[in-house]
C-alpha cells in the first residue's frame, strides 16, 4: 500500500522535474533580448486598454457551482459502485433515490435558467 504511493510520489517528482529541467536548459540556450514593445501584452497589434484582468461573465461561476454539486455526488457514489456486487437490490434503490434527489437539483438549476448561456 505504502509502496504504491511511494512509486506515485517518485513518479510525480520525476514528471514535474522533466519539463522543468527542459524549460530551464532551453532558457540557458536561447537568446534573451527583451525590449518594452516585445514584452507588451499581445492583443493583435492593438494597444492594451486597462488591466489584463478584466471583468468577465458571472455565468462561469454558476457552472462551477453546479459542477461542485455533481462532483461531490460522484465522490459518494464511488464507494457504492465498488461494493455494488456485494449489495442487494435495496442498495441499488437507495443509490437511485440519491441520484434522483441530485437530478432534482439539476432540474431546478435548469428551470431557474442557470444553465442558459446568455
Amino acid at each position, binding site marked *: 500500500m505504502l509502496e504504491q504511493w511511494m512509486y506515485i510520489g*517518485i*513518479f510525480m517528482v520525476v514528471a*514535474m522535474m522533466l519539463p522543468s529541467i527542459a524549460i530551464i536548459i532551453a532558457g540557458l540556450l536561447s*537568446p534573451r533580448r527583451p525590449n518594452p514593445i516585445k514584452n507588451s501584452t499581445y492583443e493583435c497589434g492593438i494597444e492594451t486598454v486597462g488591466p489584463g*484582468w478584466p471583468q468577465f461573465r458571472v455565468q462561469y461561476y454558476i457552472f462551477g457551482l453546479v459542477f461542485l454539486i455533481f462532483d461531490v455526488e*460522484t465522490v459518494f457514489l464511488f464507494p457504492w459502485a465498488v461494493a455494488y456486487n456485494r449489495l442487494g437490490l435495496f442498495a*441499488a434503490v437507495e443509490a437511485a433515490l440519491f*441520484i434522483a434527489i441530485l437530478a432534482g437539483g439539476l432540474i431546478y438549476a435548469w428551470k431557474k435558467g442557470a*444553465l442558459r448561456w446568455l
Partner: protein
Amino acid sequence: MDFLKDPVTFLANQLVLWLTGLGLPEGVVRFLSFSIGAAILATSSLLFVIFLIWFERKLIGRVQDRLGPNRLGPFGLFQPFADMLKIFTKEYVTPSGVDPVPYNLAPVLAVSSVMAIWAVIPFANTIYGVDLDVGVVFVLAVGGLAQLGIILAGWGSNNKYALLGGFRALAQLLSYEIPMVITLLIPVMLAGTLSLTGMVTAQDVPFVAVAPLAALIFFIANLAEVSRAPFDLPEADSEIVAGFNIEYSGLKFGFFYVAEFLHGFTSALLFATVFLGGWRGPLAEEIPILGFIYFAIKTSLVYLTILLVDATVPRFRIDQLLNFSWKLLTPLALALLVAMALVDRAMVGMGVESIWIRLPVFLALNAGLFAAGAYFLDRARRRAPRPVVSGGPRPVARPENFTMQPK
C-alpha cells in the same frame, strides 16, 4: 526465451539483482529501482509524443488532401525532431506584468498531470508502473490538476484573451467531467474495483459490449476533456487568438503543445483500458509482450477515431457545447447508471447470474436510452429558433454581379 516473453520484468529483476549485489540495503534498492522505472516510463511518454506529432500531422494532411511532412527523413519522420531543436533555441518572451509563479508553473503542471496518468495504466499483464487500488480516482484527480494548469496559465498571463480562453477551457472541462465520471462509475460497478489492473482482469466480456452507450458518452466527454474538435473552443484561434497559451513562447509553449498531444493519446489509453479490455486477448497472460501488442492495437484504433473526428467535424458554439453536456449527456449518463444498477440487481435477485443472459438485457437498455437521447436531441434541434441572417435577396458571387468584368 524469458526475455522475449516478458522483457520488462526480466530487466527489472536483473536490475534488482545487480543493485542487491552491490551490497545496498533493501529499502535503498527498492527506492532506486522505483526511481529508474518511473524515469524510464515518464521519459518514454514524452519521447512518444514526438512520434504522435508526426503521425497526427501526416494523417490530418492526408485528410485535407495534402502530403503532410515529407522532407526530413523517410516519410518526414524527422520533422518533429527538427521542430523540437528549433523550439529549444527560441527566446522566452515574457510579457510585462505577468504573475510569475502561476505563469511558469502552468506548462509544467499541464504536462506532468497528463504524464502521471501513465503511472497507473496497465500496458500488459506484467508491464505497468504501479497497480494502484484507487486507480480510477487517481486518474480523475490528476485530470483535475490539468485544469488547474490551464486556469493558472490564463490568470497568470495578464492578457484578456488568455483569461477568456482560460475560463472557457475551464467551463468546458468542468462540464464534461461530470458525464465522464458518471460513465466511469459503470465499469467500476461491473468490475467491482477501482484498480485499473483489476478492471482489465474483470473484462471477460469487454465493457464496451456490456454498456455501449456508456462507452460512447465516455468517448465524447473524453474528446471534450482533451479539447479536440468539435470541442476545441479553448484554442479557437478565430475567436480568442490562441486562448490560454497566447502569451507563451519557446519551450513553455512547446510543453502546452506536448500536453495536448499526450492528453489525446492518454485518453485513448484510458478508453482501451476501461472499455476495450486493455491487454486482454488470446495468450496474453502467458506472453505479456503479446498483451502489450493487443493493447497497442486497441489504443491505436481509439486514437485513430479521435484523430478522424478531429479532422472532419466543425467546432461547437459555447452555448451548444454547454447545453450538450448539461442537458443531454449528464441526464443520460445518470439515467443509464440508475437503470443498469436497478435492472442488474433485480436480475441477480431473481437468480440470473450468468453474464451471457444479462448481456442482451443490458444491450436493450443501452439501445433504448440511446434512442431516447437521440429523440430529445432531435426535438431540441427542431424547437431551437433558427436565426435568419437577412430577409431580402443576397448577392451571389456570379460573374454578372461584378461591375468590373475581367478582360
